[in-house]
């Protein structure tokens, strides 16, 4: 297994695929963090679908499957779709969701029309344009990897240079405007940069699955971190890890598509993060809830015993199990056992000569003190 993995790693094609997947994870993790925080998660979906007509236009203009012109085309139509969406929401009564859907579907339809137009003209080199729908990671060339690396480097440099500005625009655009920052341009730049990530993703996961690549690493990273710096770093790491894992799985499985496997890997990280992230994790929250409920039940039983003792003016009043159960309307034995273990109640003998069960529950001095403390704190809250 290990040996086969090692020989796989030496495989030239796989090296390209893994490098491409890692670059995609890196750029979409970083840019996706901003998109998700700015509530523009689905804009990535729209822009990636809208890249299709650009791919076709690039193909038509260059007269062949020329990577550079295809990527520029994708960048342009992706940006145009974002602009369309913006104009629709600003100048008409349509809401964001409808504008996103309109830009997505109409641009994609335009892409389909252009695609069939290219196929209709029987251009011999048109083979492989379909592949941009689902990605064609296995066909990644070293030259493609260099292009992706270049785009990623541009995006990361922009983020690094404009870090403070992007951060402020993301969290408090109004304050940024009051500081004299060109907020509109910064927001436009952040949005357009998503198109850069889409362009990198075209080859790896295709236009359809790109949405998850933008959203998933950012959502996963958000669970582990409360600061933008760590969130962006973590999202990049998760993206890279998911990309590489997906590429490896695809190579090991021989024949399973790389794009979906990358998406599933990243999504698995999201699921794990949602469940297990410290503080925000759903498992921990459920545990906290359960513990809280248990503590409350114990306090209720304890104060019930205390109330019974007070009413009978007997600090060591002995209560029957059944009595306490019916007092609470449910079984309390577990809670009582827990209290017994904490030394707050005793499972003592019934007073001699009294009918009923031979063993009863009574408060220990520590239990009395604890019950008084609970009741006092309740009073404080009530006051």
């Amino acid at each position, binding site marked *: 297994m290990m040996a086969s993995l090692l020989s796989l790693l030496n495989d030239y094609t796989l090296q390209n695929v893994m490098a491409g997947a890692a670059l995609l994870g890196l750029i979409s993790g970083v840019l996706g963090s901003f998109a998700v925080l700015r509530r523009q*998660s689905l804009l990535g979906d729209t822009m990636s679908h809208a890249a299709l007509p650009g791919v076709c236009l690039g193909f038509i203009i260059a007269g062949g499957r020329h990577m550079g012109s295809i990527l520029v085309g994708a960048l342009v139509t992706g940006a145009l779709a974002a602009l369309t969406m913006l104009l629709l929401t600003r100048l008409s*009564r349509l*809401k964001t*969701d409808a504008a996103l*859907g309109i830009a997505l579907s*109409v641009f994609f339809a335009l892409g389909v029309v252009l695609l069939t137009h290219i196929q209709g003209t029987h251009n011999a080199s048109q083979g492989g344009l379909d592949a941009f729908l689902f990605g064609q990671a296995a066909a990644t060339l070293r030259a493609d990897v260099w292009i992706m690396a270049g785009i990623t480097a541009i995006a990361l440099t922009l983020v690094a240079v404009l870090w403070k500005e992007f951060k402020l625009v993301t969290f408090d655009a109004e304050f940024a405007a009051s500081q004299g920052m060109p907020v509109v341009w910064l927001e436009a730049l952040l949005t357009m940069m998503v198109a850069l990530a889409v362009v990198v993703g075209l080859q790896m996961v295709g236009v359809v699955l790109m949405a998850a690549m933008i959203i998933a690493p950012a959502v996963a990273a958000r669970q582990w971190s409360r600061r933008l710096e760590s969130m962006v770093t973590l999202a990049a790491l998760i993206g890279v890890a998911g990309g590489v894992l997906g590429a490896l799985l695809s190579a090991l499985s021989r024949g*399973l598509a790389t*794009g979906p496997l990358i998406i599933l890997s990243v*999504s698995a990280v999201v699921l794990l993060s949602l469940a297990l992230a410290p503080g925000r994790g759903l498992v921990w929250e459920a545990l906290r809830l359960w513990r809280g409920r248990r503590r409350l039940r114990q306090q209720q039983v304890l104060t019930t015993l205390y109330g019974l003792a007070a009413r009978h003016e007997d600090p060591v009043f002995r209560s029957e199990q059944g009595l306490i159960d019916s007092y609470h309307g449910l079984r309390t034995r577990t809670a009582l056992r827990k209290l017994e273990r904490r030394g707050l109640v005793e499972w003592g003998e019934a007073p001699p000569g009294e009918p009923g069960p031979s063993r009863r529950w009574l408060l220990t001095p520590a239990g009395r003190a604890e019950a008084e403390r609970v009741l006092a704190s309740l009073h404080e809250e009530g006051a």
Partner: protein
Amino acid sequence: MLAALFDNPAAMIMLVGALVGIASTLVGTFLVLRGNSMLSDAIGHAIVFGIVIVWLATHQQSGPLQILGAALTGLLTVVLTELLVSTRRVKQDAAIGLVFPVLFSIGVLLLNLYARDVHIDTHTVLLGEIGFVWLDTVTLGEYRVPQALLSMGAMTLLNAAFVGVFFKELKLATFDEGLARALGLAPGLLFHGLLLLTSGTAVAAFDAVGAVLFVAFVIVPPATAYLLTDRLWLMFVYGMLVSILSSVSGYALAVAWDVSIGGMMAVMTGAFLLLAFLVGPRYGVIAQWLRRRGQRRLNEIRTLAVHLYNHEGSPEQHEENVTRALREHLLWDDAKARRVVARSREQALIERNGEALHLTPGGRELAREILEPGRRAADGQG
């Protein structure tokens, strides 16, 4: 007669296209109004998973049971999205974008694994083949009816029945969810029913237009209608009209240019939206611009009237109430001042006497109305 119609591929293709649009408009109108349009995108992608599973299980795609089975995955997407949102860890739009790619990915991988058993290839998944719907027929009595026409017709009737029966409830749940809940109408259940029908429509339309173009048919015609009217029933009428027109014109253009028919139909819905966006009677960009221009002109005329009124009969009247003074006092350039004066004279609100500008009685009345809005009402009562 009927047989001739069923044997006419062009008619069949346009009819199926129109039915896809009409059935989608019926459900899409509520999605657009509720601000949930992108759920159709999620559903469109996720049913790929359902279709593959159902195909592997039953080796059939187009029975009612198959449609229901695959449609349930659409509903599953919605439920999973809601579940994610309810954890309060993920916003709704991010949740949508997380769930459907997972289901879609699993669907594609299953296609990879069982490619030999499944008759759909990944290409059809996204694009559909509406041009071939007339090839796949079933015999109904003495007619050979395209399968897609049957399933789309059934979905259209089902959607129409649902919307017809629950029209009042859907309307209330869409525009005032709180009231609907208070009245015991279960808007959540109603909405899930609507989404199940949306999924069913997506499955039925899948062979014809595929997963992504379906989104265009759900969102664009209702959105176009929304730009044209405020009345719900008119939205349906306009939406269906757009669907039919898109289907016919899309088919004609696709044949003329030899391109994808489904794609061209979807592009045409976009063209009609653009038309409504630009020249819509009330909400169109041009109508808005004209309205704003009219408002601006009215304000200029009113400003001039008030200015003249304020200085009327005062010692400085001869130097204030001249065109020249408007530059300093109202900060208007000469051209603008001349325009406003000309327009005011056209409306007989002012008169020019050499250099001096005078209010007509009508102009004076206008200025008074602005300065003492309560006066006329008081006069009326007095």
